[in-house]
């Protein structure tokens, strides 16, 4: 299976994205903002289809739209970032606009499917380079803000009193989430970003209560699920995104069920 360029690209892309999703997703779950991450991906759909409409690259549109939405959501603060109805409205409106842009473009069904559900086998060398650059950028940024972000996530009032700017770190974090979301969308599509961003992180938090172990486990699980999904897709000829969602769900259920055995 490694004889083909597209398979090697797929495994490389999945490795980059899984590391980013696993680590960023850990903080997303810890902060209880998973639904916000989900909504960002849908905003990315609008960005990607809009970009195609004006002749730009879908990935560029995806990144610009998610980062802009992430920063906006961060500035809106808790009023929006943790409110289900507002986020749900943004989410469906984004898909609606995406549909409208596609209508004008009379798009190819394959491209729409790739955006919505991902097409990891179509990743070329150029995309791989962009994914690597965005991945390094988002993890570097996360590394810089990790300590105050953790403090602000666990104990916001005390953090504020000790001089942490809550709004600043909320905005920076959601910008990082937006980058991670755009990366994930390349592998599993905008509709299934949850499966890589949230599934492994939530399972890891079930399995260990230590931050360091949790972060490592989250990244490892995301990597295993992404690679496993691609391998299973190769052998079965079923879509890789299906396998990744299946593995993610299976790992999460096993984590809930198996926790009693670990302790």
């Amino acid at each position, binding site marked *: 299976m490694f004889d083909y360029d597209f398979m090697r690209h797929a495994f490389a892309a999945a490795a980059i994205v899984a590391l980013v999703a696993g680590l960023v997703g850990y903080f997303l779950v810890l902060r209880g903002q998973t639904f916000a991450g989900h909504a960002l991906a849908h905003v990315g759909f609008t960005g990607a289809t809009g970009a195609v409409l004006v002749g730009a690259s879908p990935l560029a549109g995806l990144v610009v739209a998610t980062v802009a939405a992430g920063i906006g959501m961060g500035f809106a603060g808790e009023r929006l970032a943790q409110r289900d109805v507002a986020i749900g409205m943004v989410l469906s409106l984004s898909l609606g606009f995406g549909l409208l842009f596609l209508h004008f473009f009379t798009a190819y069904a394959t491209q729409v499917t790739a955006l919505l559900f991902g097409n990891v086998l179509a990743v070329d060398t150029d995309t791989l380079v962009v994914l690597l650059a965005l991945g390094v950028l988002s993890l570097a940024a996360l590394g810089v803000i990790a300590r105050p972000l953790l403090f602000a996530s666990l104990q916001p009032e005390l953090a504020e009193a*000790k001089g942490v700017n809550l709004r600043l770190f909320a905005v920076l974090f959601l910008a990082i989430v937006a980058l991670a979301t755009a990366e994930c969308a390349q592998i599993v599509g905008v509709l299934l970003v949850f499966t890589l961003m949230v599934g492994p992180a939530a399972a890891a938090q079930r399995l260990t209560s230590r931050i360091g172990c949790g972060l490592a486990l989250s990244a490892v699980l995301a990597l295993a699920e992404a690679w496993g999904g691609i391998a299973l897709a190769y052998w079965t000829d079923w879509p890789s995104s299906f396998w990744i969602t299946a593995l993610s769900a299976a790992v999460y259920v096993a984590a809930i069920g198996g926790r009693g055995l670990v302790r």
Partner: protein
Amino acid sequence: MNAPGRTIGFAAGPAPKNAIEIEALTLALGGRTVLSDVSLAIRGAEFVGVLGPNGSGKTTLMRAILGLVPPAAGTIRVLGATAARGNAATGYMPQVRGSLADKRLSGWDFVASVVNGHRLGLPLLDAAGRREVAWALDMVGARELASRPLAETSGGERQRLLLAQTLIGRPRLLLLDEPLISLDPAHQQAVVALVKSLQTELGIAVLFSAHELNPLLGALDRVLYLGGGHAALGTVDEVITGTVLSRLYGSTIDVVHVNGRIFVMSGGNDMEHDAHRHDHDHGGHDHAGHDHAGHDHAGHDHGGKNRSGRAHRDV
């Protein structure tokens, strides 16, 4: 002044005489005046209970002391410096919210997140940081909670972890906002006893807000009563009197002493308990049938905490 770069070891410099000095302070929140023209001083090592009805400004005053609410008028000096955010010498325990109960992080990581938490970088602790966390956990007797996820701790255990968080940075002033909320009487007495022992052992000032005076009676040096935009600070005997409280509330208040307990009444209603009951549900403590004369708070006395017994004799 007293915020050394690394928040390890006791804050440098001689302790100022007063922990908090408030001059002609007016605080407003969303256009409403919460406190008006209040002046008072809290000494360097005293336990002050902060009482008053809902909305009387207990939380707002604490947030102002932390530099989170700017004064509309007047000044606040904390340990000799103007109140400002980022003061390592002030520990703060906000009112507990439900959001902690679903966190799956260990107690150790929860407390450790405070160590240099305002600084950029990865949340890694050096040896001194680990010692600091271990010390804080030991001080509150929460060493065994270190490896347990927050989601699997009880309300009382979570309070101890929150208290451990406030000790990081070796503060000289602790601001504790309603630490007794939603605890049953036995756990209330345990928390009060713990805070009192920390306060005397470390020689620090503590502001402890509460709905009820009685659980604090054995521990507090003075009481700060807020009401009607005004404040009264003094010993229990000085402040908790019909005259003083009537002036604060602007209506007739009676203070009734029963078996070493004190009840603040307005028109025959026990005000503290009314406020208490409306504000939240605190499991196990039955208010439904109490009448004031015969109110015996059985749980307080049977909590197994000897401090509780002493509290009653002291009054």
